[in-house]
């Protein structure tokens, strides 16, 4: 069986699984899986750029995804003029001051001769700068958060169309990746892993606590949508006529139409990113990245600037994750910082990429769909499994109840088993890279 036949078969299998869900369960569930599958595939592609192309061990995907979500809020929500009037200047001045302090500290470090004086000067700049920053910043934050805290209490966004948030999410994630890459990319792989893990937690801590930015744990609800609302469709006589003509119930049809709309938008983004990634992989640049991945020392000896290339690919991959994060928040229609968990948004993406095949873009996409399908479906399957197993137990027995309640945690277990099995028996994934 040739390579391409096998790969087509694998994709057909995943398509069959999703269509099967539509037939057996409901088309609504199938479309939900498809939409999140598209987003997961993009995240997996982004991670594949970093790990598969360049061998960068990034376990901070969650942070970039959350930054994408933040971009959705900042771009699409209407601004809160009262909050801007009350404390906008204070907040912006505080942030500018904070950035200036860091720049001055870095300049001090770079310009002064090494020694005790340099350390002292840098510490003075940082400590004095920190207190000055807090003095300016805190006042502004307090003023902003006092403006109608139940409904807003934040600066709001720009009030622009939500689709614009997707590229902005990428830019935001790229900016964060630049800062991280500048400091952490020189580290060897284990250290980089811990560093990115920590940075993702810090990004989440900021999102949870800085209420002026995106309301923190109070969440932002009712984000604008790029597709029509179900209610509007149901009230549109033309739409109702059309779907009843097709023999569909208008309520179901409207919900399906909305999801299909999302699916179309997401597919466009996925295809664009996939084409770009594929072009990059087969370009001289892609060959250089793989050369660096396989033997850094040799690539350096050939005159390649390894540090710069690493930084470049780290930023690109993170930006892709940021775009996916913005799309996901758009799909959810709300931004909930507490919902970001490393197992789901970092390590699950790793499972997707490894299972699909790191170093191969199609593998990453396949893994994204397949693992997301399993992540959703393992729960009902686990419940069914446990019901079958516990059937002989007496109704209402404590063990039986406990087992049935715990079915939800089967998915973590299954993901671990899948990852270990793939690593053991097919370590290069379903569609191996070159």
């Amino acid at each position: 069986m040739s390579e391409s036949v096998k790969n087509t078969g694998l994709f057909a299998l995943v398509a069959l699984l999703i269509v099967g869900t539509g037939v057996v369960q409901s088309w609504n569930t199938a479309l939900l899986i498809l939409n999140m599958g598209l987003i997961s595939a993009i995240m997996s592609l982004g991670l594949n750029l970093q790990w598969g192309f360049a061998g960068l061990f990034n376990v901070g995907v969650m942070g970039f995804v959350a930054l994408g979500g933040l971009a959705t809020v900042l771009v699409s929500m209407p601004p809160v003029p009262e909050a801007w009037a009350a404390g906008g200047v204070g907040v912006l001045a505080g942030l500018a001051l904070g950035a200036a302090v860091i720049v001055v500290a870095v300049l001090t470090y770079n310009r002064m001769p090494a020694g005790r004086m340099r350390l002292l000067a840098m510490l003075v700049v940082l400590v004095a700068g920190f207190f000055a920053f807090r003095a300016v910043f805190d006042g502004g934050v307090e003023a902003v958060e006092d403006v109608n805290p139940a409904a807003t209490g934040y600066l709001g966004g720009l009030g622009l169309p939500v689709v614009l948030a997707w590229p902005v999410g990428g830019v935001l994630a790229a900016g964060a990746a630049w800062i991280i890459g500048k400091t952490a990319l020189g580290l060897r792989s284990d250290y980089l892993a811990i560093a990115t893990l920590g940075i993702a937690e810090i990004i989440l801590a900021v999102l949870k606590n800085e209420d002026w930015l995106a309301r923190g744990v109070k969440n932002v609800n009712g984000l604008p949508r790029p597709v029509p609302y179900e209610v509007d469709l149901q009230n549109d006589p033309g739409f109702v006529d059309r779907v009843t003509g097709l023999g569909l119930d208008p309520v179901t049809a409207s919900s399906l139409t909305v999801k299909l709309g999302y699916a179309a938008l997401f597919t466009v983004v996925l295809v664009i990113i996939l084409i770009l990634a594929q072009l990059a992989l087969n370009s001289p640049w892609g060959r250089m990245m793989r050369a660096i991945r396989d033997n850094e020392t040799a690539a350096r000896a050939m005159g390649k600037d390894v540090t710069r290339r690493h930084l470049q690919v780290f930023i690109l991959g993170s930006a892709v994750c940021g775009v996916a994060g913005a799309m996901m928040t758009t799909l959810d229609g709300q931004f909930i910082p507490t919902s970001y968990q490393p197992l789901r948004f970092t390590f699950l993406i790793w499972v997707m990429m490894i299972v699909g095949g790191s170093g191969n873009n199609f593998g990453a996409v396949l893994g994204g769909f397949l693992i997301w399908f399993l992540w959703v479906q393992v729960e009902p399957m686990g419940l069914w499994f446990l019901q079958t197993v516990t059937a002989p137990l007496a109704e209402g027995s404590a063990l039986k109840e406990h087992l049935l309640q715990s079915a939800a945690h089967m998915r973590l277990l299954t993901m671990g088993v899948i990852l270990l099995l793939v690593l053991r028996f097919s370590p290069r994934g379903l569609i191996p890279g070159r």
Partner: protein
Amino acid sequence: MIDLLNAIVALSNFVLVPAVTYGSQLALGALGVTLIYGILRFSNFAHGDTMAFGTMVTILVTWGLQALGVGFGPLPTALLALPFGIAACMALVLVTDRMVYRFYRAQKAKPVVFVIVSIGVMFILNGLVRFIIGPGDQRFRDGENFIITARDFKDMTGLREGLALKTTQGITVVTAVIVVALLFWFLNRTRTGKSMRAYSDNEDLALLSGINPDRVVMVTWLIVAALATVAGTLYGLDKSFKPFTYFQLLLPVFAAAIVGGLGSPLGAIAGGYVIAFSEVLITYAWKKVLTYLVPEALEPDGLVQLLSTNYKFAVSFVILLIVLLFRPTGLFRGKAV
């Protein structure tokens, strides 16, 4: 003078005692990470969940003992259950090593492959723990709550500030000292311990000297399981047990091990305290201490808290980054593979 004493007591009560306790817990966790790194040469991402697993078994046995009416007087029953937790955790790590890691060791796989494999193990353990005990908060502390309460202390000394010493804090420090002393005795004085250090320093040379690598690896896992269970149980007694919190402990534990220098046991202990003290010092509201120390005119208005407690992860991380940038091998010159 009295003001100074008051300030010292307040500082001890809110900063020193909690930081020493937390530091001891982190140090025990970091010792496990550092031993794995030194002997098996990879960063074990499943360590937080190993801690959770050992603690979970301890909790289950504790509940069993409590149901049987067995107690430990003023001390928590969990201490009686600890040996069972350690035994179960040892069994678990030996099984994972046999079923998962050994294959890659035989292949001489790259360290990064081990790290990815440990992510898989992490998923499984995480699911297993949640499956058995549930994702919620579990409290299993019993016995006396305090060694000295704040009120007793005030009565005894006549100071305005009280120094409360919780039983769990006392137990944590005492247990940590015993465990660390045992570990160092083992590593420095026994034949097996010496062979472990030799293996860690130079694998090829150790193999040439006739050291049995399988035995070294097995003993390492056993020690790590014991350390992880003790660290997890102490943390759970002091705070509470929640699977997700233990997963999150991975970050400060790794930060401690790296700050101290990966592969160096002494460094892991120092790193634990460095991380704990910086987290507590930077997130502590200094108002109370300062009001005793500065003249009334200078008394601060705010809480004088440098960062909100929610940013404590950020603190351990920034320390980690500073150490990595300026002294990549850590404070105690660990190994850089």
